[in-house]
Structures are given as C-alpha cells and as structure tokens.
C-alpha cells in the first residue's frame, strides 16, 4: 500500500538556521511527490513538485529513491516560513496520498 510518513509533527527552528522537513514514502511504482504548505489564515497551496526540480521560496526537495525520501530543505529559515507543511505522493490512479503534516515554527 502507498504511504507517506512525516515523522515530525512539530518542528521549531531559529531564524537563519537551516530547516529540514522529513518525508518518507512507501510505493511500489514510480513515485511523484509534492510538498504543500498552509500559512496562517491562508489557503493550502502547492509549494513544489519533484519533477520540476525547482526552488520555491528558497526551499528545495530531492527525491531519493534509495532511501524512499523526499525531504524539504531550506538553508536559512525565515519567520514567514512558519506554516503547516504536507508531503504528498501521487499514486498510479492519479490520486494523492498526504502525510499527516509538520507544523514549522521559526523563532526570532
């Protein structure tokens, strides 16, 4: 069965420190992975997708098939990065399976 695990429910870092949100998946097929973000009082939105190999708002995520991971990283966290982050896996039937989410708090 396809599954997405975000082991950290809460993550607190200081401004300017690196931040890494962990995401592990189990999937027998060829995975497509995404990160979504929900800022306070804003709508949930797509942050980035692995196939785009892009950097959005300073965040990057690399798909590691060997470790079945898709960790989200940013070298220098900012206060505006405080939000709820969801990792998601797209399955063969094109439906998304979401992780439980990680709440990030960036302290001044």
């Amino acid at each position, binding site marked *: 069965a396809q599954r997405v695990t975000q082991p950290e429910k809460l993550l607190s870092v200081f401004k300017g420190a690196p931040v890494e949100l962990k995401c592990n998946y189990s999937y027998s097929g060829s995975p497509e992975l995404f990160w979504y973000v929900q800022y306070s009082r804003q709508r949930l939105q797509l942050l980035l997708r692995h196939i785009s190999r892009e950097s959005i708002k300073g965040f990057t995520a690399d798909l590691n098939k060997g470790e079945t991971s898709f960790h989200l990283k940013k070298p220098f966290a900012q206060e505006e990065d405080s939000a709820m982050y969801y990792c998601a896996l797209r399955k063969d039937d094109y439906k*998304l399976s979401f992780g439980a989410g990680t709440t990030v708090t960036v302290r001044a």
Partner: protein
Amino acid sequence: DAGITQSPRHKVTETGTPVTLRCHQTENHRYMYWYRQDPGHGLRLIHYSYGVKDTDKGEVSDGYSVSRSKTEDFLLTLESATSSQTSVYFCAISESTGGQPQHFGDGTRLSIL
C-alpha cells in the same frame, strides 16, 4: 487566490441530520476534489470529479455522496451525519489530468454533535 468559494464556512449540526457542503469555482477547471483534514491524518480524499456528472470515490468515501451538475459546482452530501464526520472539509480544483490539486478553498469547519 483562485476563484473557489466554499459554503458554509462553519456549520454545527446534530447526528443523523443531512448536510450539504458546496464548492463553487470560477476558474472553469475540469477536476474538483473534496478532502477532509483531521489531526494525525493530514488530508484524505473523499470524492473527486473529472467532469460534469463524472465522479469517483476517494479513500474515505463511506457516508458521503457527491454531485456535479455544472462545471462550477461540486456538492458534498452527508446523508446522515455522524460524529466521526466532524472535520474540516476542503474543496480543491485542478485543470490538468495530473491528479494533484492546484488550488484549494478556504475550508468548511463542520461539527456534528
């Protein structure tokens, strides 16, 4: 923000009553989704639609039905609400066949007593 409106935004009702949530979009996107958000579970797909009158079940569809009679409207109905359906419900839309929602609504907080 994309043109997605969910109504109502908040609702409190009693067990056993029918409840209908509405999602209205002005983006003319083909795909529409209903998710529920619960602590420890993230978002889980209830139902989705890939066109007018074309719908399919998600992973937690029991107790829910949907209808899409127009491109812009996607209704989620709880025929007989139960306390386990207390949740925050999100509508989402997508114009591509990729399956990943591109835009989400503001959510509906539903409490069933």
